[in-house]
């Protein structure tokens, strides 16, 4: 079993010749199988793998009392797991309380975990063994040549027929695209329907409970979320009715007559609730400053300035919905939004 080696080249591995003792030979103890140190039998024993390691040593090897103590500790850990597992069963039967389940489950894992680790630390051999990393990292040159030969046997044959390769390339492209077609069944073509909501001329604004709204229902400084009657599930349609009361509301020339003036001020105005940044509902309204904030990314819109963004990442004003009062005194839309609501997209322009 013993292997001797002749090792004279200096500086080959970490230790250098000094530690090989100058005689250039290292004696491997009898009965030592080099395989257990990552060394093939017959191969020279490397300088950076000590030959005299006690790789069977464990912590309490020479301390029978300590070993017995460790054994008892580890056993106690496993008994803890045993008890906790029975506890878990009992908890399940009796009401399945979440906290008690957490205690039992946690303790069961804890007992096993601590037990395993103590067992490994105190009673198991093989700490701090030094072995060779072996020859696995790279292959010898002749094997590299061999694999290149194997590869070229096929690739040479293929390269001789460029026409076949070209057709195959074309097939790969076209067939690849063809196999993607089933994916088109996943959804409809976008077309331009991101640009429209369900609001139309004369459609009543209703609350989340489906109740139509009269201007009198909205005291100054109030705000409510409304949806187009009959289209409650249109996720782009949520609209905020805000009564700014007598506060001066800047009416953009193109938006003349889109609000319901009151008390000499802007009165009731309607803006899309869908943030122009990333589409969250802009739902936090500051009644003192007439500012609307989206809690997702802190975009802030000044309602009195036609819902212009005054802070945060939103790049555009919230679109305004033209509203008026119908013959029965309820708030209705004059038309759909005049521009796409919500976040941007390529074709929005």
């Amino acid at each position, binding site marked *: 079993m013993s292997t001797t080696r002749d090792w004279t080249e200096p500086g080959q591995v970490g230790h250098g010749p000094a530690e090989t003792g100058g005689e250039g030979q290292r004696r491997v103890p009898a009965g030592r199988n080099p395989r257990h140190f990552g060394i093939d039998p017959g191969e020279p024993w490397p300088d950076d793998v000590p030959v005299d390691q006690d*790789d069977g040593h464990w912590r309490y090897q020479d301390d029978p009392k300590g070993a017995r103590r460790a054994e008892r500790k580890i056993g106690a850990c496993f008994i803890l797991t045993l008890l906790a597992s029975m506890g878990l069963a009992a908890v399940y039967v009796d009401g399945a309380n979440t906290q008690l389940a957490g205690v039992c489950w946690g303790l069961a894992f804890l007992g096993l975990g601590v037990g395993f680790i103590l067992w490994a630390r105190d009673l198991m051999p093989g700490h701090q063994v030094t072995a060779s990393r072996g020859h696995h990292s790279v292959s010898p040159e002749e094997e590299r040549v061999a694999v290149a030969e194997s590869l070229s046997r096929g690739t040479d044959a293929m390269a001789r027929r460029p026409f076949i390769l070209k057709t195959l390339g074309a097939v790969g492209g076209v067939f690849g695209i063809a196999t993607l077609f089933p994916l088109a069944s996943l959804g409809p073509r976008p077309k331009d329907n991101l640009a429209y909501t369900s609001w139309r001329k004369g459609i009543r604004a209703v609350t989340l409970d489906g109740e139509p709204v009269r201007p009198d229902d909205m005291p100054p400084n109030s705000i409510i979320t409304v949806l187009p009657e009959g289209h409650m599930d249109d996720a782009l349609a949520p609209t905020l009715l805000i009564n700014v009361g007598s506060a001066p509301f800047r009416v953009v020339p193109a938006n003349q007559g889109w609000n319901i003036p009151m008390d000499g001020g802007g009165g009731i105005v309607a803006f899309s609730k869908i943030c122009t940044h990333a*589409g969250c509902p802009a739902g936090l309204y500051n009644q003192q400053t007439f500012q609307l904030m989206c809690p997702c990314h802190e975009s802030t819109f000044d309602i009195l300035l036609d819902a212009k963004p005054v802070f945060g990442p939103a790049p555009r004003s919230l679109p305004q919905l033209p509203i008026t009062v119908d013959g029965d005194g309820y708030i209705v839309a004059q038309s759909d939004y005049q521009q796409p609501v919500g976040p941007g997209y390529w074709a929005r322009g």
Partner: protein
Amino acid sequence: MSTTAERAAAQRRFTLGKKALDEVDDRFGSSKWLVSVLDKIFPDHWSFMVGEIAMDSLIILIFTGIYLALFYVPSQKDVVYAGAPGHVYAPLVGQHVSEAYASVLNITFNVKFGLIMRQAHHWAALIFLAAIFFHMGRIFFTGAFRKPREINWIIGLLLWQIASLEGFTGYSLPDDLLSGTGLRVIYSIIESIPFNIGTWLAYLLWGGRYPGTVFFERMFVIHEFIFPLLIVGLLTAHLMILWRQKHTDFPGPDKTETNIKGTRFFPTFVLKSGGLMMLVGAVTFFLGGFVQINPIWLYGPYTPYTVSAGAQPDWYLAWLDGDLRLFPHWEFRSFGVEIPNPFFPGLLIPAIIFAIMFAWPAIDRRIYKDYGSHNLLDRPRDKPFRTALGVAAIVFFSDLTLGTGADIIANDTHIPWERLVEILQIGLIVGPVVGFAIAYRACKSLQRTDAHPIQRPLGGIIYRTADGAYHTLGEDHGDGHAGAVEHAGGNGHGDHPRASEDARRTEGTVPAKPQD
């Protein structure tokens, strides 16, 4: 020590085990391989456990996830919550909710042990991602991504990214108000991809305009089939490559590029590693039992027109959400087309960051002109530029993460949130530069003193010898190990003599291994 009886019993066990192994070898010829498996050595360092913690939490995720999948209903169908006999969550009774939301309420309130499974699953996901981040930092700062381990760095990055998306789809499945706003944001980010790709993609994924009617069925397939398949597949490759290449180790006495020092796989490492797995389980289930997470019954069901204040993603995606918050209100509108604002912080900036991270082994190679293979790790201080860059990246990500919490921090500190956002915007530029400078100086100082970063103060320690000479501690102990100073011109292999010798060897001036 052993008695005759013990020796005889050991002999019997050996014979019995050998007989069984002979049967195996008759069929597979596997003995040589099995020896290398059982004898395999894993170096010991506490930081090497973190990757194991990621793997352990993944195992917990798989088991708790299978359990939850048996009860979850991926449907956006509108139902009225009534609860089941016995356990009813009164505030929601009579409310319109989706079937998905109702099924998660059922798991929470009616399935015995359902809540602890849900909470353990969610906590395990947070631990999984935390371990991945930490593991990634360890690999980066110690140069473990260098040749021959570049592929595993890339696989690891993919695992991080898929795990993040897996986490996102997971916490979106309950269809509660909080996660619903997150889905809306993701739709908007996808929609923002130029050349109409975004609109097409969003329409294909959601089957039309947000929120559609089919998305939860698809998200369920993604969350419980496609992503787990990718994660398990990539992790298998990750571990097989690790196994093949063997673990890296820190430099130390008697450690070389060609040897490996540590604990044998069987029995000691198996028990230690299994024990760690059990401890991860213990922590996860204690948390799952005691610490409430994602109480969707308090958030309420999702509607497109409702939102709660303080809406935030789970922590591992916070940097992305912070990016959306801190990016200025720019967007590109011209020629009748538009590149919307979310595209830049939501896709372009992450894409640039990811590109740099994927290319990092190649970049690092060029910076340090170090093309050799390495099994011994760098001490972070010995590569000040890389370490400082890593610190700058951590500051950058932390600033973005704080950005996500800007509204909550503002609420707690009474700093106006506008000011806080502006501070974080400035911090995003200035912070990494400052972090880089401090880390670079710290590395240089640590190199001079060779001190442990948290055990000794920075700066030189001077001592006087018996014959009156003065020396700076750590400058030269004559063992060629201390006093690592980066060579002029940053040639990088040479931080201490042995390392440069190793580098020469791998480059071929010195034979890489014994030539028989």
